[in-house]
């Protein structure tokens, strides 16, 4: 589990009310309008990340390193994702997790993906949101959760291209299965393989940030 405690006081300034902090978070994205980062993680059975990565769009000048999420807000990503896991776990046992019913604040179509096929219950579509960021999720047959925070253009809610995102998740799922088939890999352990990492990043470039 990511150790957030030492960084928490840097992120959550107790003097500033939380709604303003969220705004500050969103404003950092506004300042860099070409930034469309994603934070992607594979979460294991004990809510432990077994893989994490940040992807950025290539919309800056050639060769220029794009800012992903601002440094002091990167830790928020893990926190946001873990908050979404409760929702994911609830959706995990619903027959049609993509239908327009949910619990609590998720009822209603504007938060749930509309383009997702009802029979495919691996890809869950958009499951949550946080100050204009969208969170999508996907569950594998062995209960691994693939989750992603999409930071998009700041005018309103981030638009999710379900087809692209679903394709990305499916491809990473397959890479995960290949990892799992190796007898030397133990389930729920981190995936340190550079080969895996480079392929995931290539898929992100192909499906998420063209």
């Amino acid at each position, binding site marked *: 589990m990511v150790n957030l405690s030492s960084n928490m006081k840097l992120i959550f300034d107790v003097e500033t009310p939380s709604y303003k902090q969220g705004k500050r978070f969103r404003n950092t994205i506004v300042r860099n309008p070409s930034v469309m980062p994603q934070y992607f993680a594979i979460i294991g059975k004990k809510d432990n990340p077994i893989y994490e990565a940040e992807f950025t769009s290539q919309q800056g000048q050639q060769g220029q390193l794009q800012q992903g999420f601002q440094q002091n807000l990167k830790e928020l990503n893990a926190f946001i994702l873990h908050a979404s896991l409760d929702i994911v776990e609830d959706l995990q046992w619903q027959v049609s997790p993509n239908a327009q019913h949910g619990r609590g604040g998720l009822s209603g179509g504007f938060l749930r993906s509309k383009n997702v096929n009802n029979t495919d219950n691996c890809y869950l579509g958009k499951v949550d949101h946080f100050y204009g960021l969208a969170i999508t999720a996907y569950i594998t047959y062995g209960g691994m959760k693939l989750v992603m925070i999409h930071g998009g253009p700041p005018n309103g809610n981030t638009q999710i291209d379900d087809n692209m995102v679903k394709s990305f998740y499916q491809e990473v799922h397959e890479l995960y299965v*290949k990892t799992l*088939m*190796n*007898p*030397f890999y133990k389930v729920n352990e981190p995936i340190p*393989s550079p080969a895996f990492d480079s392929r995931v990043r290539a898929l992100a470039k192909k499906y998420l940030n063209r």
Partner: protein
Amino acid sequence: MSAPAQSKSLKAIGEDTWKNKTEKVNAELFTLTYGAIVSQLCADYDRDFQKVNNHLFSMGYNIGVRLVEDFLARTALPRCENMVKTSEMISKCAFKIFLNMTPQVTNWSSEKDAFSLMLDENPLSDFVELPMDAMKQLWYSNVLSGVLKGALEMVQLDCDVWFVSDILKGDPQTELRIKLNKVLKDEVPIGED
């Protein structure tokens, strides 16, 4: 019988036996079972890969001494007179009948007492990628060395069998080498003349 004709019929025997006289199973079950064995051994021996190699070899040896009977029962082939014939028997018949493989025989020594088998497909190693520490020392398919050692001993050939290279270790090919030490004389039991 001339050598090429005999090797052709060995190939035919191998294929026919595989096709018609062999009950078959999903190779992936075999692969996965072997994978479970190797990875568990690595854990049990605390990643002392030399010990794992030795254990795999002795497992193979135990299999090899029993496997020969099965082989002879199925093929009814006579005992081989020399290493050249032995190599043909192993590559065209034995590997075919048991594993549906036909490794290539190459790299003969000048005295014709040693040869290599090139395994270009190996059902044992599907899906496998060795961890960094294992790559230096572990001969993943070492059970095969033991099987050949044990089987050859049962037909009176005392051989050394070992892996020269393995694609799992990053080598360009997987090469298994067999070298004859000596022919074991059939022992006359005590009391008989």
